[in-house]
């Protein structure tokens, strides 16, 4: 029984197919990575899987719930959480409050009890504060417990989004390029954090350009190219797939310097595998 099932999913922007006829299943408890060159539709796919975009065609099923066409908060309420490539931190709040917002769905809060701050409400608030602090420690942000969000460095903000997503108690967590912009040490710590997420019983979907990270943590990999599935399977298989290597190397012809590092990583991985 898969956790998430996607059937014939498509998204058109005008005449352009950002995602086209995509089907795949994500088994529970795994790290499922989505890779592909820039513009392959990875972030569009994440936006579809969280309801930020409405699909033009196809279905999205979480366990037995059909979520197709529902708003983002409905996806969240069924247990899908995410982080963003362009941070969506609440910069007008403290770091701790950011994580407390993540607890929103689990706070029973009527308007009256909020306005009157009934004792029950005050108690619930304290519990929420403690749990949020606990989650901040869990992702390694203990140094920022009393920080304002707008006073934190980039790497810490990425972790803050993970803590906020965790606070929703998700079944499925989508990480959109968590390693982008991190220094090598911070990126290494991410491996460990992703490993601990799965230990918590959270299934992880990872969109990432850092091949070392992807190859290190993934159970399954989905390779996208021009919005379509290029390859999919266990990590071992995918990294030996000639089509995948070609797709990545093929982009070298376009001579875009931003790909060079990525290509080099893929080649290094491929060479290592064929040794």
């Amino acid at each position: 029984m898969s956790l998430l099932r996607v059937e014939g999913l498509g998204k058109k922007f005008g005449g352009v197919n950002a995602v086209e006829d995509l089907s795949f299943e994500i088994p529970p408890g795994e790290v499922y990575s989505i890779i592909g060159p820039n513009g392959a539709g990875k972030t569009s796919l994440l936006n579809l899987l969280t309801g930020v975009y409405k699909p033009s065609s196809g279905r999205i099923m979480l366990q037995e719930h059909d979520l197709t066409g529902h708003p983002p908060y409905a996806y969240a309420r069924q247990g899908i959480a995410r982080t963003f490539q362009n941070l969506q931190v609440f910069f007008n709040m403290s770091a701790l409050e950011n994580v407390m917002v993540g607890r929103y769905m689990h706070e029973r809060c009527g308007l009256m009890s909020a306005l009157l701050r009934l004792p029950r409400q005050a108690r619930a608030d304290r519990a929420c504060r403690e749990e949020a602090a606990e989650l901040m420690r869990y992702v390694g942000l203990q140094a920022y417990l009393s920080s304002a969000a707008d006073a934190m460095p980039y790497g810490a903000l990425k972790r803050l989004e993970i803590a906020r997503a965790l606070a929703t108690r998700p079944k499925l967590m989508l990480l959109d390029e968590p390693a982008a912009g991190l220094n090598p040490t911070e990126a290494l710590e991410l491996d460990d954090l992703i490993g601990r997420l799965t230990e918590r019983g959270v299934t992880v979907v990872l969109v990432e350009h850092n091949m070392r990270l992807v190859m290190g943590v993934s159970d399954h990999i989905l390779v996208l190219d021009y919005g379509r599935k290029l390859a999919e399977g266990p990590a071992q298989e995918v990294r030996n797939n000639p089509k995948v290597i070609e797709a990545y190397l093929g982009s070298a012809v376009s001579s875009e310097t931003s790909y060079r590092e990525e290509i080099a990583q893929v080649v290094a991985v491929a060479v290592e595998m064929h040794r």
Partner: protein
Amino acid sequence: MLAHLASPRTGGLLALAAVIALLPLVLRNSYFYDVAVLVGLNAIVCIGLNLLIGYAGQISLGHAGFFGLGAYGSAILASRYGWPPLAALLATTFAVALLAFIVGRPILRLRGHYLAMATLGLGVIIFMVISTEDKFTGGPDGISVVPFRIGGFVLQGERIWYWVVGALLLVAVWLALNLIESPTGRALRALHSSEVGAEVVGINAAEHKLMVFVISAVFASVAGSLGAHYSGFVTPAKVAFLHSIELVTMVVFGGLASTFGAVVGAAVLTTLPQLLATFEDYEMMVFGAVMIGTMIFLPRGVVPSLARLFRSHRSADADNKANKA
């Protein structure tokens, strides 16, 4: 315990209560009391408006409309139809809340300038209706309002009203502070910063915007009703677009996303025109100048800027002590 008293929340409430309790020592005659009552009523509107603008980040340029509906609703029900004022106030408040709920749903889909235009339009429509339906509202001449009475007790005179409005102001501040520190308040602040970020943790942004719009309309309406009974007379001037602008200026001047800022903004900008009474014709110019000056020199507003200054002084002091030790 002391730390608890010094928290912005409890400490602020105590400070405000002290100011309200001690202010009569310097209020020399009923004119001063009159200004203080107007400050209190405007402050209640601004606290509600600040929940909408400052915390949830949704502009409204039509809140004088809700204030006016509260005033006229109470005036018409209590004076023309002889309803008990309390019943008139409650019925009017409920009707205004319902109107805000119905109108808010389509309007709050808009963002930024479009939302500003739509709320402005709403305010203008309310103004037009009130100033032309003269059978009920008295048109441009206005309408006189019976004094507020509960049972046999009649609320009359600036001094009594001072204490009533003072107490209600404290309640309004307390409610606003409670709301902001609740999960609902955090959701409002979150969607202000990132709507998509709020939605993906399960927050229905549209529903929350609508809720805070209704709450802010209720604050305005109640203040309008009370103001009508207090002054004994309402004219369309209180419903006009310029009054909406005054209210927004008070909120921005006092400090967005600061409940005490809204109170300070209302106090300063209600008192200022009274001090400049001889320049009455230039009142709107003064408001315009205050708005421009605030935007340039104190973009965060008076109270948040002062709070920041105070905090940085304190932390500098702490650093000095640490260095000496």
